[in-house]
């Protein structure tokens, strides 16, 4: 292929500049499109699987949507009202939980203050508990706002599914156009690089999503069976926290044990919750992880905790959500760049 002339480079630069400026102007409406593209990327392999029976693309997409519809309709009808209800109850009960916890703590406080009078002089306990109370009240009250602030209800229910539908329909065609546009000499290297990244990263993200849903659903079912309050909220939190190895499983356990203890006031409930989460962890480690994670990147717990905190520092809640996938992307790129050459089998070519 010939080299680009200065004029062509100028035109390309202008096009990129104008496109960038335009995207900046419409940045507020981009999120549903970006998320739809992300879902399209995640769901494409499933569409290929359905299509491999010889079905038309549109039929495959409709079948996938019907399957999701059944699952999501179930979630919408059963879990969402429950979760919203739990949030409302939690908001009402938060001060009571706090005072109960404070009651337990104040005994402890008196004992300490008896022994070390300077603690009382400095009012360490009072200041600390006041700060915690403030934080707790303001943060808990804001939880539903966080969720709805990131995604409006309209974009979740209507916009994203519709956009994803059309992207799934058109993605193969778009890909084919790109394929034809790439100069022949670069086809092999560029697409191979793309697929190497996809093979590692795609598996990682899909694996995490499957694992999150698995742990989340099992936790919810288990907690409901044990009769723990806020089963849906705690189960969902356990599923999401499960992305952090070692630390994640404890989050669900501690939340559930705390709520169970306040509710039943016996140690038995803590043991039951511990058994439940141990069983879920066992199933996850031995059944799900070997299948879904496979060759995908494995981030060390240290990396995950660091990226979560870094994400929170830079972008807040949204940063924490995207932190782990972004760390995954960086690790994938590094893995591909510094990939050790596959060891070749050196054989003397004596043919027998």
């Amino acid at each position, binding site marked *: 292929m010939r080299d680009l002339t200065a004029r062509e480079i100028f035109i390309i630069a202008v096009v990129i500049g104008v496109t960038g400026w335009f995207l900046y102007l419409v940045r507020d409406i981009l999120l549903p499109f970006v998320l739809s593209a992300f879902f399209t990327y995640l769901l494409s392999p499933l569409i*290929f*699987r359905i*299509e*491999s*029976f*010889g*079905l*038309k*693309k549109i*039929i495959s997409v409709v079948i996938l949507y019907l399957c999701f519809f059944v699952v999501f309709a179930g979630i919408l009808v059963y879990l969402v009202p429950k979760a919203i209800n739990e949030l409302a109850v939690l908001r009402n009960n938060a001060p009571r939980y706090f005072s109960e916890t404070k009651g337990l703590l104040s005994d402890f406080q008196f004992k300490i203050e008896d022994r070390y009078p300077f603690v009382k002089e400095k009012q360490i306990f009072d200041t600390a508990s006041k700060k915690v109370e403030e934080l707790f009240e303001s943060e808990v009250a804001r939880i539903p706002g966080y969720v709805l602030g990131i995604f409006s209800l309209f974009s979740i229910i209507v916009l994203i599914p519709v956009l994803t539908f059309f992207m799934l329909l058109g993605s193969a065609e778009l890909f*084919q156009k790109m*394929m*034809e546009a790439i100069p*022949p*000499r670069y*086809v*092999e*290297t560029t*697409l*191979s690089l793309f*697929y*190497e990244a*996809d*093979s590692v990263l795609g598996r990682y993200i899909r694996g995490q999503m499957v694992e999150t849903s698995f742990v989340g659903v099992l936790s919810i079912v288990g907690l409901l069976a044990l009769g723990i309050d806020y089963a849906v909220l705690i189960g969902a939190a356990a599923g999401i926290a499960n992305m952090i190895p070692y630390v994640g499983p404890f989050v669900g356990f501690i939340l559930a044990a705390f709520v169970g203890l306040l509710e039943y006031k016996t140690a038995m409930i803590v043991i039951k919750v511990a058994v439940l989460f141990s069983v879920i962890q066992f199933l996850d480690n031995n059944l799900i992880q070997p299948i879904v994670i*496979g*060759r995908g990147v494995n981030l060390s717990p240290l990396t995950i905790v660091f990226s979560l905190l870094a994400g929170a520092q830079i972008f807040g809640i949204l940063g924490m959500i995207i932190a782990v996938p972004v760390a995954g992307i960086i690790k994938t790129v590094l893995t591909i760049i510094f990939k050790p*050459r*596959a060891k*070749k089998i*050196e054989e*003397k*070519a*004596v*043919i027998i």
Partner: protein
Amino acid sequence: MDLRDLFTKIFFDREYKEKITFFRTVSLFSGLSDRALGNVLGIVHSKIYPAGETVFKAGQEGKALYIVKTGEVKVSRDGKEVCRLGSGEFFGEMALLEEIPRTATVVTSKESQLLLIYKVRFDELAEDTPRTGVMLLRNLASILSARIRDLKDLDTKPLQTK
């Protein structure tokens, strides 16, 4: 039109049948079921090359296998033409096993539609559908073994590549 035809027309992809029929002519895919070929279809990319276009040069690292769908390509080594490959034939199969430099240069002699299978995707397919993977690797192995048998003066002296 009977109901079954109508059903087929609404739900099934017409091109799918054509593609599968073409795959049946490729020796790499022999013995694969329709369903397995359907899976292979998901990892195949097609690209149209104008006549006289270089597909790859000897020495470049190979990352994909090519199947000639339509047209014709010319394979040459050290500037000398080795053979021409037409519809249903394939080349660059070593890339599916090892990422090693290409041993020949391939140029299209007519406008050609080539199908590409990348090593990465081939490995994924083999992992996700092991049955299909075993069949494909077995076919690949017997094709390579046939080529070794075809090498001239094989029985007079063993090859020493090192």
